[in-house]
C-alpha cells in the first residue's frame, strides 16, 4: 500500500559562499522521498552534506535550487516568518545536546512550541502533562533542566517535539551525548513513537542507531549515495 509522501525533495542544491569568493556546493541535486509513518536514518561522513540536508529538512535553511515539499506545500522558497511557522507546526526537533531552555521548568519547556503558535497555554496544559507522563517525567514537572540527568533532559525534548503534533520528528544524533544504556532507552522511546505512527527522520553516524530505521540513506559528496532497507514497514 502506497502511503502519502510527507517529504518530497527534488534535485535539491545548496551553495555556500565562503569568504566572498570560494563557492562550496554542499548539496548537488539530492532527491529524497519520505512517506508517512516511515523511520528513516541519514548517515554519512562529515562533509557529505548530512548537516546541510538536516538544516533544509528542518526548514532552518532554504535550498539554493530544487524543490522541497513538506506535507504537500513547497517550503523551498518560503519567507522567514512562514518558515518559522512551518517549523513550529509541522516539525518536532530532538537535538544531540537536548537544548532545553535553562530558565524554564520541564512543563514550560514542553509548552514552548505552543507558545509561539499563540495557543492558550492553560487550555493545552493537560496535554503537556500527558506528554510528560508519556516520557516518564510526570513527577518532575516543576524541575529545571539542571536538576535533571541527560536522559531525562532528552526525554523532555522528546515530549517537546511531540507537543505540536508534527508531521515528522527530526532527530539529530539524539543519543550522541548519552551513555549507551540511556541511549537505548531514548531509542526505544523513538521506536515506540514510530510504532504509534509518527514519521521519524534521524541523523546519525552510529550504525547501531541507524539499524533501527526502516531505511538508511547514506550520503556522500552532497548526494544520496546509496539506500539500505533494513526492514519493511511493519505498520
Amino acid at each position, binding site marked *: 500500500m502506497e502511503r502519502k509522501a510527507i517529504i518530497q525533495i527534488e534535485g535539491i542544491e545548496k551553495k555556500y559562499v565562503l569568504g566572498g569568493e570560494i563557492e562550496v556546493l554542499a548539496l548537488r541535486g539530492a532527491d529524497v522521498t519520505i512517506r508517512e509513518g516511515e523511520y528513516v536514518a541519514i548517515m554519512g561522513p562529515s562533509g557529505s552534506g548530512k548537516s546541510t540536508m538536516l538544516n533544509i529538512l528542518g526548514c*532552518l535553511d532554504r535550498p539554493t535550487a530544487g524543490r522541497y515539499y513538506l506535507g504537500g506545500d513547497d517550503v523551498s522558497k518560503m519567507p522567514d516568518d512562514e518558515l*518559522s*511557522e512551518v517549523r513550529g507546526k509541522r516539525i518536532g526537533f530532538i537535538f544531540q545536546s537536548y537544548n532545553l*531552555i*535553562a*530558565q524554564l521548568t520541564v512543563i514550560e519547556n514542553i509548552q514552548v*512550541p505552543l507558545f*509561539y503558535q499563540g495557543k492558550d497555554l492553560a487550555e493545552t496544559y493537560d496535554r503537556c502533562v500527558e506528554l510528560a507522563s508519556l516520557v516518564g517525567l510526570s513527577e518532575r514537572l516543576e524541575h529545571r533542566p539542571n536538576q535533571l540527568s541527560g536522559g531525562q533532559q532528552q526525554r523532555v525534548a522528546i515530549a517537546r517535539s511531540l507537543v505540536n503534533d508534527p508531521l515528522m520528528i527530526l532527530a539529530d544524533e539524539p543519543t550522541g551525548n548519552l551513555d549507551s544504556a540511556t541511549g537505548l532507552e531514548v531509542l526505544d522511546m523513538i521506536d515506540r513513537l514510530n510504532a504509534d505512527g509518527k514519521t521519524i527522520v534521524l541523523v546519525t553516524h552510529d550504525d547501531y542507531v541507524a539499524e533501527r530505521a526502516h531505511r538508511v540513506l547514506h550520503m556522500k559528496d552532497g548526494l544520496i549515495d546509496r539506500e539500505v532497507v533494513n526492514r519493511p514497514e511493519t505498520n
Partner: protein
Amino acid sequence: MAMRASQLVSTIKLGIKSLLLHKLRSGLTMLGIIFGVCSVIAMLAIGEGASYEAQEAIKNLGSNNIIIRSLKPPEDTKEAGGTRGRELNYGLTYDDGARIYSTIPGVHRVLPMRIIRENVRFNENYLPCQIIGTTPIYPEIAGVDVVRGRFICDTDELHQQNVCAITTGLANRLFPYQDPLTQAVKVDGVYYRVVGLVQEQSTTDQRSQAGEMEGEPLDNNIYIPMSTSRSRIGELILKRVTSGFGVEAERVELHQITVQMKDTEAVEIADAQIKTLLNRFHDQNDYEIIVPLQLLRQAEQTKRIFNIVLGSIAAISLLVGGIGIMNIMLATVTERTREIGVRRALGAKKRDITTQFLVETVVLSIGGGLVGVLVGVATPFIVSNLTDMITIVTFWSVFLAFGISGAIGIAFGIYPASAAAKLDPIEALRHE
C-alpha cells in the same frame, strides 16, 4: 498577527525569570536606572521646594497689587552739612495717593500706610515696634487675619480714636498674663485701647527674605487709624543722631501706598503710568515701585531654568544607566545565543525574539524605575526631615522619571533585541 495579551504576559513572566537567573547582574544593571530616576525626582523636588518659599512670599504681596514705597534719597543729592538742623523732606504724599486713585485706569483701591518705629509700653514691658497708621481696608489688601476682636474701623478713622489692633506676637510679649482686649498700650505718651488681634500671614523666613532689618522684632506691629497717626504723631519725625549735633528731622507723609488693581492685566499697564505720574511731582528719586506680579514671573523663570539644569544632570545619569542596560543586554544576547537558536527552531519568528529581549530590557528598566521612584520619593522626605529645606515631590516629576526609565528601556533595548533576532538559527544552534 498581533501578539495577544496572554502571550505578552507570558513574555513578561519569562523576562522576569531570565533576569532572576542572574540576580546580581540584573540588580547591578538596575542600579543605574534606580539612581537616575531617584536623582530626577529628588532634584526636582528640592528645586521645587526652594522656589516655593520665594514664590509664596511674593504671592502674599498680592498679584493684583502694586506697592510703592518711600525711599530716603541718596546722600549726594543733599547739600553737604545743609541738613543739620533742617528737616529732610521726601517720600510719598497724601496727594500721590489721591492722584493715583483718580487718574490711573483700572485702580480698585488705594491703601496708604504710615510706618513709624517707636517703642511701646505696657507696665514694665517695653518693646520696640512699628506703629502703622492705615485705613480699615488694610486686612483685605495686605492679607492679615483678624483673630480676635476687630480691626480699626471707619468710625475710628473719622473720630481719630485712640484705638489699635496689634499682632498676636506682640500681644503675647506685651500681655503675658492679661487679656489684651481689656488693655491699652502706651506709645510716646499716648494710650491706645486694644480692640483686636491680627495674625500676620507671612512667616519669619519670608520676612528675612524680604530684606527686613536684622534683629528687629518681626511681627511687633500696632495698627492705628490713619487720622490718629497724623494727629498724634504728625509728619515730622525726629531722630537722635549718634554723631554730631542733636537730632535729624525727617518729614514723610506716607511710607507706603499699596495700589490694588482690578485685575492682573491692569497691573501691567499701570506700572509705567504710575511711574510717569509720580515723576511729575517728585524731582528726587525718593520712591520705589514693586510689582509682585513681575517678581513672581521672574521667580517662575528662575525656577524653570533651575529645573532644566537639575533635570539635565539627572537625565545624564539616566542615560548612563541606559547605556549600562544596553551593554548587559548585548552580553546576554551573546550568552544566550543557543537559546535563541532553539526558540527559532521551535517556531519563534524574528519578531518574537525581538519582543522577548525588548520586554526583558523594559522589565529591567521599569523595575529600576519603580525602585527609583520609591527611593526618589523617600529621599526628599528624608532631606526635609534632616534639614529645614522644603521639598515638594510633584506628581509630574514622578511620572516623568518613570516614563523616561521606560523609554530608556525601549531605546536601549531595541539594538540588542534586533541583534538577537538577526542571528542565523543554524549558527545559533551550533553556538557553544
